[in-house]
């Protein structure tokens, strides 16, 4: 802090005149030291006449002028006489710029009173608006995918490959680690009670079926929602804030085809591939537990092959395709609906991850029901 010295003297004369003498440097650092003292003196004396002697002020900045305005404001309110004496011309000019009565209230509040009915109405409208824009976005996306299927040259394949690398290949280590640990933990938790019945070898069945059908695709999708969907939302959101999306539109380029299509295609390609690795690492995690219990690797592999078949694997991979569409689609959709400001990008990212995970779980449930009725 810069050292600034200011002194305050207050005196009430016999005839009731309050004299406030301020001397020294009245700036943003020092004014706070005497502000309350001045206000207290004014309130205590409640004099009909106040004289503020400023002749010994060496320097006065905007904050110092603020104190003088506050004195004027209080005196005008009470109708008392005020004399500010000895103020240098340059400060007087600045003081004259402000009408004290303009600052009656410290801060005018926004009239923003709403009742419960209005809030419910607004929230409902917001949900409805959200659903409408999601449906509209889905329509645009399907149209763009249809166009791309009929004419693959409309896709910017170079961008798609780059995105496949950053959003897919680079996600491989984290997906592999999480799948391995989940396989290991699940096998460990299951092996202890199953051992009591001498059924610990069936841990292999548990791991194979749950990983291929459920956990492999689901965990991959959840990691991708946290990693890739949020990245898409942040990237497109920043582009929206920087008016880059508007620039594309005015150039006659459809943002959905230009930005979303490449991301969706890249994610659709990468999701099943990463899911296969997630399955492999989940099963490897389970093998660690059984190997440590003394079973040979061959026995573990045999049980896996006997308990699970290609239908389980392909069923899981089909789900991963749907999850890929959700991860990329929701991330891009929230990115493109970003409002202005830095916090808006954060909002979009959060919404993308939260709604992405909810949609993934709901879709997973839907697949379970469908597979049950199909006897898969």
């Amino acid at each position, binding site marked *: *802090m*810069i050292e600034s010295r200011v002194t305050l003297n207050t005196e009430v004369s016999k005839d009731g005149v309050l004299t406030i003498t301020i001397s020294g440097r009245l*700036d*943003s*650092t020092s*004014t*706070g*030291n005497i*502000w*309350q003292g001045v206000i207290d003196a004014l309130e205590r004396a409640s004099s009909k006449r106040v004289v503020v002697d400023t002749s010994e002020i060496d320097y006065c*900045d*905007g*904050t110092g*002028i*603020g*104190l003088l*305005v*506050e004195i004027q*404001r209080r005196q005008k309110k009470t109708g008392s006489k005020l004399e500010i004496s000895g103020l240098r011309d*340059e*400060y007087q*000019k*600045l003081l004259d*710029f*402000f009408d004290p009565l*303009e*600052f009656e209230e*410290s*801060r*005018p*509040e*926004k009239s923003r009173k709403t009742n419960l009915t209005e809030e419910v109405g607004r929230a409902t409208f917001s949900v409805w608006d959200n659903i409408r824009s999601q449906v509209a976005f889905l329509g645009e996306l399907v149209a763009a995918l249809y166009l791309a299927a009929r004419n693959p040259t409309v896709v910017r394949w170079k961008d798609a490959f780059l995105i496949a690398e950053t959003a897919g290949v680079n996600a491989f280590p984290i997906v592999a680690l999480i799948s391995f640990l989940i396989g290991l933990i699940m096998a460990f938790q299951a092996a202890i009670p199953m051992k009591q019945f001498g059924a610990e070898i069936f841990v292999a069945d548990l791991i194979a079926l749950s990983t291929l059908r459920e956990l492999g695709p689901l965990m991959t999708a959840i990691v991708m929602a946290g990693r890739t969907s949020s990245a898409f939302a942040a990237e497109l959101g920043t582009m929206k804030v920087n008016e880059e999306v508007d620039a594309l539109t005015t150039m006659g380029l459809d943002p959905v085809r230009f930005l979303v299509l490449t991301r969706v295609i890249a994610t659709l390609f990468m999701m099943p591939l990463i899911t296969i690795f997630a399955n492999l690492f989940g099963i490897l995690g389970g093998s660690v537990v059984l190997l440590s219990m003394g079973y040979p690797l061959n026995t573990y592999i045999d049980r896996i092959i006997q308990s699970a078949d290609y239908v389980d694997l392909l069923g899981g991979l089909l789900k991963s395709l749907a999850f890929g569409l959700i991860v990329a689609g929701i991330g891009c959709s929230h990115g493109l609906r970003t*409002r*202005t*400001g*830095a*916090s*808006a990008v954060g909002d979009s990212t959060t919404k993308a991850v939260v709604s992405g995970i909810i949609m993934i779980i709901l879709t997973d449930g839907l697949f379970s029901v469908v597979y049950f009725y199909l006897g898969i």
Partner: protein
Amino acid sequence: MNTESETIIHVESLTVAYEDTVVIDNISFEVRKGEVFVILGGSGCGKSTLLKQMIGLYSPAAGRILIDGQDIVSAEGDERLRILRKIGVMYQSSALFGSMALFENVRLPLEEFTNLNSAAMDLIVLMKLKLVGLKGFENHMPSELSGGMQKRAAIARAMVLDPQILFLDEPSAGLDPITSAELDQLIISLAHNLKITFVIVTHELPSIYSIADRVIMLDKRVKKIVADGRPQDLRDKSDNQWVRQFFKREVTSNVS
């Protein structure tokens, strides 16, 4: 306009480079207290870069920048904070905090650096907003303000602690001529009455004629200062043809 000749900023043998690319090559100049000092030059000549060096955001490749006698480049900790309290900056993009209303944006430095009570802070904020013509917009979010209003809000925030030096990066850009002229008047008035020193990067020639006490011109071809003086003198009497053309807005193949 300039009444005192005391130097407040010394730039000594400053060289600015991005990796191996030299943008500004060994320049020196001084800014005097209370002066409205304008940095001028063609696009890409390093004006904004120079400003960012002067406010200590980047370290130069060589040279020193003294603010009120203290080197902002080498200062650290409390010493750096003391120097930063002497300056206020308005960025080209305004850089208002998007998650805060205008009132909170301007109030933030007061909350962090002064011991004023809450009502006093409110009053100071309203006074600053009145100074820049934004009283009545306290509750607006930055995204609800026009580009020109955002700039004025950024000036209010930059000067809320009454710094000795205000750095303004392209203050008039995006403002209509009347608002721009009002802003010029505000700058003149603050320089006059509060003895604030202004360092301004701008292209706006009408503004420069009305506010600048002194102008330096950077030329990206030589990476040096090619002119230094009053704008009227540079326009009419400069030895450098490019400088005269710049001020007269004459288009020739030499003008970059």
